[in-house]
């Protein structure tokens, strides 16, 4: 098969991911954009690894590394989001633009009891 | 057998589907009966001889019920959740071998496939918890999410230990490499896997996502009729898949006397015993509290799985 198809898909995913990171102001939604960017990177690595064989299997191995790093990254990012939610009661990155909804106000203590 | 590929695929799909629809019913009926007798009762007796058709009757009842979608539900998420919970187990069942020849989809890394696919089933519960628009469902869904993510780790590690011992990621290869003394060598891993499997199935004693005395019925609170039946089917199909997986990984699958001809029967027998053990736990034990549950996963099961992994590594290096 032609390598152009997967590469174009990867480029498209990268574009979508960029849009997601730039256009959204919800912390978790920005994370989704970043995930798509990482997915695009993984797809490029796998495609190149599958089409031009390499004795060190670098395409597949590096993709596995990317997946692992993504897991680490998302854990830290979510911890930051949780801490942010506890202190500010919202996950809007524009800050004062949107006050938290009324029912989210008492969530500070509520969320804390649920987590641990 | 030299059948055309398409015919073979269709035939296998039909067989897997039939197994998928009948085995969970058998488990459900066994649960009715075993639970009843363990509590000094008889269980269902009216539908068919000794209540053998009770679950068919239940199914007919579920079909007749109204399919209610709550007003505040997230409609599509709510409606799709049962299917998302059910289908992963169907795929997993297709990849589990009953004997060296009896496997519907013989893929090279079938262990990884089964583990990966069953981990997707979480989304059914999460979607149900969110989509119902009910606070009890939401709490239950979050409990389920936390529980499944926590127990997946020890489960995968325990499975990895067996894969390491067998030197194969294929379930067929693992079962073929099995020999009886693995029962002792892999015992900690087997225990970890069993406990984690029960937790993944959200069965007692790890049923706090569904705890009826705390959160009504957790994510399934708002479901009625056929969609609720799908969740029940998913639960029992999950028991089937986990019992078969445990059998193949830790009990040698089809190995036994005359395994050439009786292989699938041995698998079925061992899996049935494991399934009955899982049912037994539900009847005998109380529910584990949410924080105890997390503690068990991270402070007991995870170290135990790591010890098992080290043990296996040493064993493979020394005797391998």
């Amino acid at each position, binding site marked *: 098969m032609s390598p152009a198809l997967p590469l174009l898909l990867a480029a498209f995913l990268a574009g979508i991911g960029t849009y997601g990171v730039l256009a959204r102001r919800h912390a978790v939604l920005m994370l989704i954009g970043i995930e798509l960017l990482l997915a695009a990177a993984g797809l490029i690595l796998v495609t190149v690894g599958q089409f031009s064989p390499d004795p060190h299997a670098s395409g597949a191995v590096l993709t596995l590394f990317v997946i692992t790093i993504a897991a680490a990254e998302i854990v830290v990012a979510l911890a930051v989001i949780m801490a942010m939610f506890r202190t500010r009661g919202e996950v809007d990155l524009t800050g004062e633009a949107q006050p938290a909804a009324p029912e989210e106000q008492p969530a500070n203590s509520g969320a804390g009891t649920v987590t641990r | 057998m030299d059948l055309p590929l398409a015919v073979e695929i269709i035939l296998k799909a039909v067989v897997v589907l039939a197994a998928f629809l009948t085995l969970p019913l058998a488990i459900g009926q066994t649960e009715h009966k075993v639970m009843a007798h363990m509590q000094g009762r*008889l269980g269902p007796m009216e539908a068919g001889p000794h209540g053998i058709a009770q679950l068919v009757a239940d199914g007919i009842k579920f079909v007749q019920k109204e399919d209610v979608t709550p007003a505040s539900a997230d409609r599509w998420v709510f409606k799709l959740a049962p299917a998302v919970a059910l289908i992963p187990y169907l795929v997993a069942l297709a990849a589990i071998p009953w004997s060296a020849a009896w496997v519907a989809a013989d893929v090279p890394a079938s262990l990884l496939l089964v583990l990966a696919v069953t981990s997707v089933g979480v989304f059914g519960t999460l979607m149900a918890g969110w989509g119902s628009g009910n606070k009890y469902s939401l709490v239950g869904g979050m409990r389920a999410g936390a529980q499944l993510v926590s127990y997946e780790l020890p489960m995968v590690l325990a499975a990895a230990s067996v894969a390491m011992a067998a030197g194969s990621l294929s379930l067929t290869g693992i079962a073929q490499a099995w020999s009886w003394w693995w029962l002792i060598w892999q015992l900690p891993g087997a225990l970890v896997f069993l406990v984690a499997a029960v937790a993944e199935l959200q069965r007692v004693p790890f049923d706090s996502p569904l705890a009826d005395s705390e959160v009504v019925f957790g994510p399934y609170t708002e479901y009625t009729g056929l969609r609720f039946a799908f969740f029940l089917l998913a639960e029992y199909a999950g028991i089937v898949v986990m019992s078969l997986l445990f059998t193949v990984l830790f009990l040698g699958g089809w190995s036994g006397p005359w395994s050439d001809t009786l292989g699938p029967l041995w698998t079925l027998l061992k899996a049935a015993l494991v399934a009955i053990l899982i049912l037994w736990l539900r009847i005998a034990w109380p529910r584990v509290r949410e924080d105890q549950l997390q503690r068990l996963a991270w402070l007991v099961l995870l170290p135990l799985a790591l010890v098992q992994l080290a043990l296996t590594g040493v064993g493979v290096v020394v005797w391998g």
Partner: protein
Amino acid sequence: MNEDKPGALQALRGLGKGLATTAKTLARPAHTRQYPHVEPDLPERSHGVIALLEENCTSCMLCARECPDWCIYIDSHKETLEPTTEGGRARQHNVLDRFDIDFSLCMYCGICIEVCPFDALFWAPDFAYAEGDIRNLLHEKPKLGTWMERVPDATLPEGYARPGAETPAQDADGPVGVTEPSVGEAGSSAEGTDAGDTSSREVEE
């Protein structure tokens, strides 16, 4: 689980005990009785339904008045008995017209049976008298009488003979079951309590 006070070993022992108990129960036969197929053998003094021995009732209304939810309905009228001896006085006695118990209201407290001074009400062990319509649970005196059949012998008044039995045992102070002397005595005792109040409808005034 393992860090609780009882200690891990004890917790494990408890879990094992749970498994053992359920397994033991599994090995034993079940306690279930298949009711519609197999009749239950109830203790003979089971509180199933309230039976009426009509001959003993003097329509004194005690039961109806004591009933906490007013489910007993009694109607009666007075009749005059001609004097049995020459120059004797004519006596009056109450004749029971209606004795109904509404079992849709009855809560089976048994107070009516306790307060009945004349042994006219009994517990019978029958329980299968459900009806399709709640109004049909208002049972009248012939129906209440049929339940006398199953009233245990031990609770029956002395000298009472079941209708099926061939020879009624005529004891000295056994007035029940036989019409003539019993009516006389029952009537007199009813007058003795409060004859005017017993009948809800005054027949002769």
